[in-house]
């Protein structure tokens, strides 16, 4: 019979869910995928460095890896890997039943899952930007450390935005992985167009956050190779855009999870 215990409130549910998910993540395989993505730019930079290229070319490689591998692949890919883990895969193996028949709010469970993915990404990804810098030897006049620190901060702002957008897609459809990949490809296409269309992409705002740290003394020539004709938005505009994307996408995903029906592929019908 029902005992005297009362189910936890939303805040405790979020914390318990996040802690349990982090425990599972630490023992699972998804963090290894994320770690591999995160380490890839550094590994490539080390290979380039070992091949004895000039400091200027190493700077070019640094900016190329930072934008194209770190932000476009590692940050977006890690967000996609974690966001698509819930709820559809768990609906398919029926373990979602344990979450969704517990006496707690669905949105609190989803927020706990989001928080766990956020913590994991924010531990791994900013470090990756700093690690990448440590693998590069630029010209003596170039302060790539300042750029790496800006990249780490930009990661802290953009990763939650990617995670929230992909969580929204995951709450909506089981094809979130495919849609997420299309999103990343489309974003790359749009950012290359420049102008106002490019401002709709998260990569544009990442570049805008990096731009102030890149002066003529520290690698503007190298930076221009990955950012030809780039017109940066104000840093405050970019931060606002990314934070607003995070909040709106996350709120919508929590609404969808609360109202949605998640029926596994193996469920049978007459």
């Amino acid at each position, binding site marked *: *019979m029902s005992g005297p215990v009362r189910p936890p409130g939303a805040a405790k549910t979020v914390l318990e869910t996040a802690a349990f998910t982090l425990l599972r993540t630490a023992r699972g395989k998804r963090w290894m995928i994320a770690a591999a993505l995160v380490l890839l730019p550094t590994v490539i930079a080390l290979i380039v460095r070992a091949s004895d290229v000039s400091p200027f070319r190493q700077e070019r490689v640094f900016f190329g890896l930072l934008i194209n591998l770190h932000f476009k692949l590692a940050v977006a890919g890690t967000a996609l890997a974690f966001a698509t883990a819930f709820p559809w895969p768990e609906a398919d193996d029926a373990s979602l039943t344990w979450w969704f028949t517990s006496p707690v709010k669905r949105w609190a469970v989803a927020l706990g899952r989001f928080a766990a993915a956020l913590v994991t990404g924010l531990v791994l990804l900013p470090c990756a930007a700093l690690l990448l810098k440590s693998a590069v030897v630029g010209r003596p006049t170039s302060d790539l450390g300042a750029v790496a620190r800006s990249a780490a901060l930009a990661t802290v702002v953009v990763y939650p935005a990617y995670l929230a957008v992909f969580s929204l897609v995951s709450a909506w459809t089981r094809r979130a992985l495919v849609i997420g990949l299309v999103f990343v490809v489309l974003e790359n296409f749009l950012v290359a167009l420049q102008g106002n269309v490019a401002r709709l992409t998260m990569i544009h705002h990442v570049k805008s956050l990096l731009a102030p740290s890149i002066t003529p003394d520290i690698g503007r020539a190298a930076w221009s190779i990955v950012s030809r004709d780039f017109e940066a938005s104000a840093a405050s505009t970019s931060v606002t855009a990314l934070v607003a994307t995070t909040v709106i996408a996350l709120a919508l995903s929590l609404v969808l999870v609360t109202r949605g029906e998640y029926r596994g592929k193996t469920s049978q019908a*007459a």
Partner: protein
Amino acid sequence: MSGAAVRGATIEVRQLSRAFGQVVALNEVSFDVAPGIVGLLGPNGAGKSTLLKILTGELRPSLGSVRVLGLDPFANPEYFARIAVAPEQEALFEDVTGREFITFMLKLRGHDAADAGRRAEEHLDAMGLADAMHRKIGGYSKGMRQRCKLAAVFSADAEALFLDEPLTGLDPVWRHRIQTRIRERAEAGVTVVFSSHVLHEVEQATRQVLLLHRGRLAAQGEAREIRAMVDKHPHRIHVECARPREIGARLLAWDSVESVRVTPKGLLVTTPKPDRFYASLTEASAAEDLGVTGLHSPDDSLAALFETLVGG
């Protein structure tokens, strides 16, 4: 077919229909269930899992209404505080230990960490998992996973239990123990919905049966009436065991066994008297270790019965 209204019903289903696109999984199903055990019986694809998911608040009805314990089930935490659900598949979190899993589920029910841990250990111990509770669930056998799921369900002290194929993968001794445990809960006033595609399993637990076939309630009533019809059809039981030839030779000597065929995972036994066969196997397994690790029953005989019932 509609079931009769029952005084004091804890589950009230009225004209329930559920469609997935063009596929009608449930079609105008109505019934009431009072506290005690009710068997939800039907071949695979009959709509049992869809009905259970509606009763457990994971899916909404397309049409009709469902009230359980006086509440609307869908996404209702107040309702979930009073029920417990064991899903059919091997649905557990592979990366955590049995103790961590049940402790977490109890925390979501409001138990503090110490109490949740203690209760988790008690219930895992009762399910014969004392030695395995600190191992990851990913390393559990099918039977251990099933017992771990049931430990989670029993630890919840719920007013209504929804068990989807709860005996699948269990050896004869554990099947008997779990059936006894379920009966004890029902005698204490708990409503238990026991879903299975195997009549014998349901019959051992309860006399009250709901028969689903192709999304409709084909019959509601006494299990023995269904048994009388089913016995006209041969019954096949797959026995998973390590020494199939040796065990098969012994089984052939039983009068409840018609034929035995060796398969890659064990034996396929045909019996005209499945209840006697199950009873004999449980007794023999309790007396000595036969090496039987699981029992599965293909639903051919039951499917044939349903075809008869609905004139298909």
